[in-house]
């Protein structure tokens, strides 16, 4: 047990600046024994809290505060000790937290040369989620003292809190500036654990323990890493050490619960957090992890109870408060349960979204269950959020996941289509993507790494809908050309530690291409075999060896070769421009085509666009050659040729609103009603709020005897709260009559006429239905 005395002097996981006390005392030669006594007493109280002995800690802190209040002229050490005591009294007492800040400020004012008060105040800011304030203060300290390892560590914590990739570099700098700073290794261990680099996580936890074997944070991280990797011997050793330091090691189990969350093993995380709460019912982190993850597995009541308890103890925790606010909003949400799915959505949108989402997910469930031989528990819950802020509250903590959707197993969440601009997303592919996660997570015992789960989800999108799933973009080919993409075996870092903004998006596509390659080369069962490998506890090299018979290096080489073969043509025509753009003959040819078009040189422009298309045949962007060619052909009256080109856009672009609209128009004009209906369906998955699309589809469906679809579309129009709801309901009744549902139609008509007995068309239909069953 080395450095025990130092540990005692830690309030927020940060040790005192070396020599600080001495400096403070030196500042005031008259510093008496009372100051030392206060400092010792508060250190003892902190140590008691470290041991989990909250009662002793509070008693000690109370004594420090009482003594401090009787000091007529407190010096910097007194203020510092009092601040630390107020921190201990903080849970459930917002006034004590504010007082702690005031005392730290007073310590700094009494001795500006010493940064201890400043650092403690800043850490308190960070603990209370005031990251921006904390960052500014740490930077201020670093300006005065650029080599201050604790300030660097504090800054790294801020960066970590804010999800910034440079947290790693800053934490490393901190450990280099002070190699004996165990907390720097603690943070590094946590960062490695989060990025699923378990060897480095364990190594840093061990290094932190070598420096300070009394660090329960270090033992907890070692335990968490061991839990994730299935190293039961190390887990037992870490637990024993943690229990020696803290007889009821709530923080140990909380850390493992958090690791379980990061592995998307939510049910296990809840069990671990329950254990932590059982050991310390006043542990805010344990209550928070339990509350948030209970919500993720659908245990809403338990979630609320735990979060209310956490919030009562720490009113500063914005995350807990936001989640409680979100739970309040749930009361106003509408739940629609049909078959194996529950849709929970704002009341204005629930019926509309459920009309489409549930049949899609039902079909997806059957298809995925057959492919992965796994069935998630039902009902599967799909939550829709209209406001990004609410969705963020639901998903925060999953760094880099993006803002489209999230899967917590059989609880899925995503933004409503109305939360994005039309053409910014495809809500059908997003829902299917998240459902696929429920299968890959479950089939692997929640051990599948992020990269593979995402790759399989994108692949499943592509199977489910024409044009769905990521596709080769110009920036992607440019990045491939420039060697900016990661090797396959390091792809997880592309999600967890992106080096540039587009990298997460590229990683999705790259991962899906890998899955495509595996299926092509090893057959469809190979992907499931990979999931089984992870479920059996293998790591990625182990899974590669078992399923693909290759080392990671061989996989990297094979995949590189696969990609270069698959994109051979565009790679010749696209090169990297500056750091964020693409260049090459494709771009030049497109630019020439557009310029010719602007000068009304239609034939020359067409030639350029044809040439560009030959260079990059798979390009599906809405600014690509096929889009221009389609419109030129349409303008020339060559509808069949226009259709061929526009189909090349809609087949590769899941958000192409204008292209799908053009295809629907052209197909309807050319008499291909069924093709037009398919294009209209695709438009609905891009943006379901356009009544004219539903009206067109309803009419076409009715014309072709597709009465089920016609009724669905009439229901959709009604769900959109149309300007003329009675007429919309009347049209629904008509569609129901056509579909043979006379009883349903009569019910709808009675609703219409109850409100508007004079509605002539509805009267006539009601008379027609008289006597029909």
């Amino acid at each position, binding site marked *: 047990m080395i450095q025990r005395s130092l540990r005692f002097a830690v309030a927020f996981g940060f040790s005192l600046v070396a020599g600080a006390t001495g400096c403070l005392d030196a500042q005031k030669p008259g510093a008496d024994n009372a100051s030392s006594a206060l400092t010792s007493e508060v250190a003892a109280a902190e140590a008691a809290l470290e041991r989990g002995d909250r009662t002793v800690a509070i008693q000690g802190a109370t004594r420090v505060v009482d003594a401090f209040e009787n000091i007529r002229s407190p010096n910097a050490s007194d203020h510092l000790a009092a601040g630390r005591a107020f921190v201990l009294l903080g849970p459930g007492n917002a006034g004590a937290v504010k007082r702690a800040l005031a005392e730290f400020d007073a310590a700094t004012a009494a001795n500006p040369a010493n940064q201890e008060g400043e650092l403690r105040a800043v850490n308190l800011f960070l603990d209370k989620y005031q990251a921006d304030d904390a960052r500014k203060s740490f930077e201020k300290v670093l300006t005065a003292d650029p080599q201050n390892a604790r300030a660097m560590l504090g800054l790294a914590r801020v960066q970590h809190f804010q999800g910034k990739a440079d947290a790693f570099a800053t934490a490393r700098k901190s450990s280099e500036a002070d190699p004996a700073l165990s907390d720097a290794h603690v943070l590094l261990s946590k960062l490695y654990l989060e990025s699923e680099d378990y060897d480095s996580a364990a190594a840093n936890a061990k290094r932190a323990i070598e420096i300070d074997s009394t660090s329960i944070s270090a033992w907890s991280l070692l335990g968490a890493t061991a839990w994730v990797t299935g190293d039961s011997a190390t887990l037992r050793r870490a637990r024993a050490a943690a229990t020696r330091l803290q007889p009821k090691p709530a923080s140990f189990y909380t850390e493992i619960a958090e690791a379980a969350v990061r592995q998307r093993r939510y049910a296990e995380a809840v069990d671990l957090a329950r254990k932590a709460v059982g050991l310390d019912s006043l542990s805010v982190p344990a209550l928070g992890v339990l509350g948030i993850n209970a919500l993720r597995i659908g245990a809403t009541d338990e979630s609320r109870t735990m979060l209310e308890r956490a919030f009562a103890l720490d009113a500063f925790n914005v995350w807990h408060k936001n989640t409680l606010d979100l739970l309040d909003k749930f009361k106003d949400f509408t739940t629609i349960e049909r078959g194996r799915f529950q849709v929970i959505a704002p009341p204005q949108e629930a019926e509309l979204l459920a009309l489409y989402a549930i049949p899609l997910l039902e079909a997806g469930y059957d298809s995925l269950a057959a492919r992965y031989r796994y069935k998630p528990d039902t009902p599967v819950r799909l939550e829709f959020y209209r406001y990004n802020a609410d969705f963020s509250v639901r998903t925060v903590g999953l760094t880099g996941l993006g803002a489209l959707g999230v899967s917590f197993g059989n609880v899925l969440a995503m933004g409503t289509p*109305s939360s*994005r*601009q*039309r053409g910014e997303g495809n809500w059908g592919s997003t829902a299917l993507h998240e459902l696929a996660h429920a299968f890959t997570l479950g089939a692997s015992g929640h051990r599948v790494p992020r990269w593979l789960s995402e790759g399989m989800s994108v692949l499943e999108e592509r199977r489910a809908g024409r044009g769905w799933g990521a596709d080769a973009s110009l920036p992607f080919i440019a990045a491939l050309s420039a060697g900016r993409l990661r090797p396959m075996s390091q792809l997880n870092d592309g999600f967890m530690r992106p080096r540039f903004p587009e990298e997460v998006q590229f990683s999705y596509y790259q991962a899906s291409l890998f899955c495509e390659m595996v299926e092509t080369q090893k057959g469809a069962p190979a992907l499931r075999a990979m999931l089984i490998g992870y479920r059996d506890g293998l790591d990625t090299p182990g899974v590669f060896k078992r399923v693909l018979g290759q080392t990671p290096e061989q996989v990297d080489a094979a995949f590189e070769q696969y990609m270069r073969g698959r994109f051979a043509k565009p790679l010749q025509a696209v090169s990297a421009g500056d750091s964020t753009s693409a260049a090459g003959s494709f771009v030049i040819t497109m630019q020439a085509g557009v310029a010719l078009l602007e000068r009304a040189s239609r034939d020359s422009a067409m030639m350029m666009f044809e040439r560009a298309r030959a260079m990059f045949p798979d390009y599906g962007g809405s600014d690509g050659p096929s889009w221009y060619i389609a419109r030129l052909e349409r303008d020339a009256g060559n509808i069949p040729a226009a259709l061929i080109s526009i189909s090349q856009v809609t087949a590769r672009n899941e958000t192409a609103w204008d292209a799908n609209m053009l295809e629907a128009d052209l197909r309807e004009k050319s008499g291909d009603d069924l093709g037009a209906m398919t294009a209209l369906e695709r438009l609905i998955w891009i943006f379901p*709020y*356009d009544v004219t699309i539903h009206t067109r589809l309803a009419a076409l469906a009715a014309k072709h005897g597709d009465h089920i679809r016609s009724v669905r579309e009439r229901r959709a129009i009604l769900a959109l*709260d149309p*300007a*003329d709801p*009675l*007429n919309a309901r009347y049209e629904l009744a008509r569609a129901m009559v056509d579909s043979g549902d006379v009883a349903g139609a*009569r019910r709808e*008509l*009675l609703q219409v*006429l*109850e*409100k*508007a*007995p*004079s*509605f*002539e068309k*509805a*009267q*006539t239909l*009601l*008379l027609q239905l*008289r006597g029909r069953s």
Partner: protein
Amino acid sequence: MMKLTLVGALFSIALITTPSRTLTAQQTHVLIVQGLSGEPQYRKQFDSTAALVRNAARKKWNVADSNLTILSEQANSAQRVGKATREAVAQAFLDMSRRVKPGDVVLIMLLGHGSGDGAASKVNLPGADPTAADFGGWISGFDRQTIVFVNAATASGDFVSVLEGKGRVIVTATRTAMEKNESVFAPYFAAGLTGDAADSDKDGRVSVLEAFGYASKEVARVYESSNRLQTEHAKLSDSTLAARVAFGGAAASSDPRVAALVAERQKLEDEVATLRGKKTSMSASDYDRELERLLLAIAEKSQAIRAAGGKL
């Protein structure tokens, strides 16, 4: 709220409860003032909105050409459109004041861009801009008519407080003079007033309140569907009168057989209203059965009215 059609005037005020009562001829007068557009897209919007109201006035509401005045930023003699200057607007009110009779309805619709505030709120016309105070003076003599004054221009909100009064329904596209951004209210209000979609009770007539409700909902939808903050909020001065002033619908028949059938149907509709009041105290099946019986009876009466040559 029941709306009734007045004989000979398809733009009507329903002040009575028995449809068989015959009233003397009552006329509708329409003045459309189309201000400066500034940009082609606004010109197009103002033109189409004015055309919608003009066509409905002629064809659906049977407003005589002599009672229909249209002023625009560009005169068009072929279409009987005068130049929309302040003087021309004043003259139009003066002419109208000579034509109107007690009980007539006057619809004034301003399209364009607004500015100013309070009594100095304006609608921008070629030349000097008339203010809300000017309009207040011009309509002050119409105290024996019902005035429906629609200022669908931007920044029009303060017209309500300046013009509101007995026998007047004032509608503005914006809540205050501060809402100066581009407004989409006018085309929706015009569509509501002249089409069937706003007829929420499907009685064949559209009240000002129904048109206002329809337009307000559609305006909100425009902003919501494009994820934009709504920068215009329409305002209405007197919802009670607005519910009673209705457009469209067929004139009551003078055929006593038809009138009797209409009265019988009205009685059945009243029974439906009574039944609705008992809904919570009845079992669902009893309620539905009785409702269907009454509704079928109403439908049969409608069929009989049509067969007898009556209009619904």
